[in-house]
Each structure stands twice: as C-alpha cells, then as structure tokens.
C-alpha cells in the first residue's frame, strides 16, 4: 500500500518529470498560449520540494504542503488549478497513514473535482481535464474491478497520455488558446501534457 514514503516519492518524481519536460511544456504553450507553462511549473515544483515537510509527515500533510506551495508560487491558471487539486487530494486522505485502493481512487477523484470546479472546464474544451478525467475514470474502474494499485495507475497513466494526445485535434474553449479558434487545432494542450506527467509520476511511485 502507498504510504508517506511513496507519496513523497510521487511528489519528487512529478517535480523531476516537470523539470525534465519544462522546455517542451513551454514550447507547447508558446504555440497556443503565452509560453510560460513549463517555466511556471518548474518554478512551482522547485518551491514545493524546498518547502516539503520533514520525513515522517503523513500523506495528507505532504499533499497539503504541495497545494499551498503551488498556489503561492506558480501564478497563472496552473498555480490555482494544480494547487487546488493537491489541496483536495490532501483532504480526501486526511489522517491516513497508508492508502487503500479506495483511498487512491478518492485522492485522484477529489483532485479532479477541484480542477473542474475552479476551472469550469469539461471534456473536449482542450484543457488538462482532457487528460485528468479519463485517467481518474480508468483508475476508479480498474480498482473497483480488483486490479492492483500499480496496474490501475499504469492504466491511468496510459489514459492520461491518450487524453492528452486527443487534445491535438481539438479547438480550445477555455484559457488563452480559446482566442485562437480553429488555429488551436493541431497543437497539444500544455496543461494536458503536464497532467500526463502527473499520472506518469503516480504510476512510477504509488505502490
């Protein structure tokens, strides 16, 4: 079962993936947005790592710290969106030392709900929701079907990536890319790309 150590590794892995892909995320944003997504997420995740509470902190304490750091360091839309996701995730696993399959499911479902409530985006708006929602759906069904957390998260990782791939053909209806109309078609949504990294990090660490 994932515990505080695996949650910490999850956060560190997400920071590492963001750092490795920062330039790519910024290039995606330059095409249909304002060329800062990778720069901002990298700055935010570095602050997250610097402020992460000491070893021994419970999963909810770690996740809450990530949320607060992102909200106060990232700016743009991604700061409040990812920040809210982690704050909601923290609440969903409050007081748990080890995460049962149902807790893993609740953690990511709550995170998605936070993103949807704040950003008011729905599927096919060409946003991070296009990667987040299918990933959470697959995660939840896989766990309900009795698959292991590792297998369910691997499926969620693939679903997030597929969801992100599917944004390429979409016209944006939220965020700065929505100003472009048809010209946004042919470009991957940067938020969906960072969300795919989030689930990749989860699949590699939350076991």
């Amino acid at each position: 079962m994932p515990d505080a150590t695996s949650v910490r590794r999850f956060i560190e892995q997400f920071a590492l993936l963001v750092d490795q892909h920062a330039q790519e995320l910024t290039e995606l944003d330059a095409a249909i947005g304002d060329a800062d997504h990778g720069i901002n997420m990298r700055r935010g995740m570095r602050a997250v790592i610097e402020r992460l509470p000491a070893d021994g902190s419970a999963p909810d304490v770690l996740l809450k710290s990530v949320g607060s750091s992102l909200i106060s360091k990232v700016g743009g839309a991604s700061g409040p969106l990812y920040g809210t996701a982690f704050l909601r995730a923290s609440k969903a696993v409050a007081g748990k030392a080890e995460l049962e399959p149902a807790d893993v499911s609740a953690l990511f479902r709550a995170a998605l709900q936070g993103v949807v409530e704040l950003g008011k985006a729905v599927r096919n708006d060409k946003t991070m929701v296009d990667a987040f929602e299918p990933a959470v759906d697959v995660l939840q069904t896989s766990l309900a079907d009795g698959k292991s957390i590792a297998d369910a998260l691997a499926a969620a990782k693939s679903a997030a990536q597929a969801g992100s791939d599917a944004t390429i053909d979409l016209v944006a209806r939220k965020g700065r890319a929505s100003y472009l109309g048809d010209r946004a078609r042919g470009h991957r949504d940067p938020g969906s790309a960072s969300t795919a990294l989030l689930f990749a990090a989860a699949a590699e660490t939350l076991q």
Partner: protein
Amino acid sequence: MKKLINRVDTVVDDACEGLAAAHPDLVRFNREPRYIMRADAPARGKVALVSGGGSGHEPLHGGFVGHGMLDAACPGEVFTSPVPDQMEAAGRAVSAGAGVLFIVKNYTGDIMNFDLAAELLKADDIDVRSVIVADDVAVKDSLYTAGRRGVGDTVFVEKIAGAAAESLASISEVERIAKKVAGGGRSMGMALTSCTVPAKGSPTFELGENEMEIGIGIHGEPGRQRAAVRTVDEIIEMLGVPVIDDLGLKRGDTVIAMTNGMGGTPLIELYIAHNQLAKMLKDRGVTVAHALVGNYITSLDMQGCSVTLLRVDEELLRLWNAPVHAPGLRWGM
C-alpha cells in the same frame, strides 16, 4: 537573445527596484511578496485601488501607482498572473478602511488568483470588490472562449476610477465608475514582430518579413489572422473599424483615444498611426476629447500597436482631467 538584463530569474524584481529607485517620492517596492505601493499609502479613508498582472506590459501596472491612480500593483512573472499572496498583502498594506477595489484583466489565471486573494481579505472583513476589464474586440465573447481579453481600456479604468477614489468617493461609487469605464472602452491590436520572453529566450512566434498578426494579444499569444503587411493607414483602418463598430459610435459622440505602442515601435510611427485614427473619427463626426499616444500597455519588445477608444460623458471627462501623478502618467500637478 540580446536583452538588457542581469539574470532571467531576477528580471521582474530588478525592474521593480529600478522603478522605486527612480520615483522614491511616488512609490515603494515590497519584494516578498512582491508589490509596488504608493509611498503615501494607506491614504486617509480613501478606497484603495489594487491591480496587477503578468509583467512585461510596463508601464502597466506599476507605472500607474501614484496620486489619482492605483494604490498598489502586483507584478507577476513575465506574462504570468501574480499569486494570491501578493494581492492579499498589497490589499492589507493599502487598505484604509474604505474598501479595496481590484482591477483585473480578463485572463483565466488573473481571475482565479485575484478571486483567491479576495476571499482571503474578505475573511478579515475587508470590503473587496472587483472589476473585470475585457475590451479586446479581436476575441469573440462567447460560451466557447474565455471571453474578451483585458487590454488598453485597463489604463482608462485605472486613471478614471483612481480619480474617483482620490475624491474620496465610496467603494460602491468607485466600483460603479470603474464598471462604467470597463463597459465603455474597446481595443484591438496588431504585431509586426513577436516578443521574446526572457525566460524562454526565443521569439514566442515567427512572423515572416512581410507578415503581420492582426488581433494580437499583449502576451504574444497569436491573433486571429495573419496577413501581408500594409500601410499604417490601412492597418489602423483594420483595427479602428471593428472598435468603432463594436462601440456603436455615432456622430456627436465623444471619446478618449489611445494609440498605444507594443514596446518595440518608435513614437514617430505611433504618431502616423494616430493621425489616421484621428481622421477616421473626424470623418464619422466623433469628437476626440483627449488622446494618449505612446507606450502604455506593452508586450515586451514586440513591434506593433493597439487602438483603444473609450466613450465618455461629462462625468468621465471630469475624472479623466483630474490631477494624476504616477511614474507613467502625469498631469495637473
């Protein structure tokens, strides 16, 4: 990339420090969290005006902190909205008990971060109101977009609401005036070249030698249409007509007009552009009560311009003419 910078990650702080060094009589700079405030704030029972947004649009917003305009400005990273901690701290620093008005440009991130800050201040019983500026006619306002972008009209909102606040009007009255200005202004811009975000180090988009982007945003976000470069008179027609039509201007109306540079266009070209705008308005029987020509809301080093028109009545004109003394705007004192 050649730029007059030290390090990409200190660009915003270094510039804010420079602004404060240049105008110690007008503004003070707080580094952490980052905001620029009036040197004499909080001011005696006055409604406090707080704005902010991504950096790279100078003189907006920090250059408009001063007498008769903003009480505080919260600069984010380049083209990135500020974080809630900044607006919360700035709001507290300049609040004089008469309420705080947030002036927010309509971008998804700006709205979210200002909303979070407003919640934090309201929890302490500070009366926080917000006015959203969404004046860019290049963007269709529909269910299928994030709504019109906030651009040039922001300068007018900050000046005119600032004058109302300086006259010690109530928060409801300052909010009413700000919304009137936000509702009565429209803009459209264009680019001849892309800007280069320091942290990215290369142009945000590529434009051919003979191409221009019509309907450009102030963050280098591509516009609606790419076209062959034409004469400035023709370009101003392409910008001015949609603005005039959207405002529904008719013979006998009065406006304040701004021909704004995007940061990389010389004044000589902006005056040529403004000449055409003035002619267009004269031909339509529209009176230009006042004009601003220069760099007021920029996009780093982008070459290009934007046109903003604000329909005014006696009330708005009186507030426009009221004294202002900020680093980026000064008259009457």
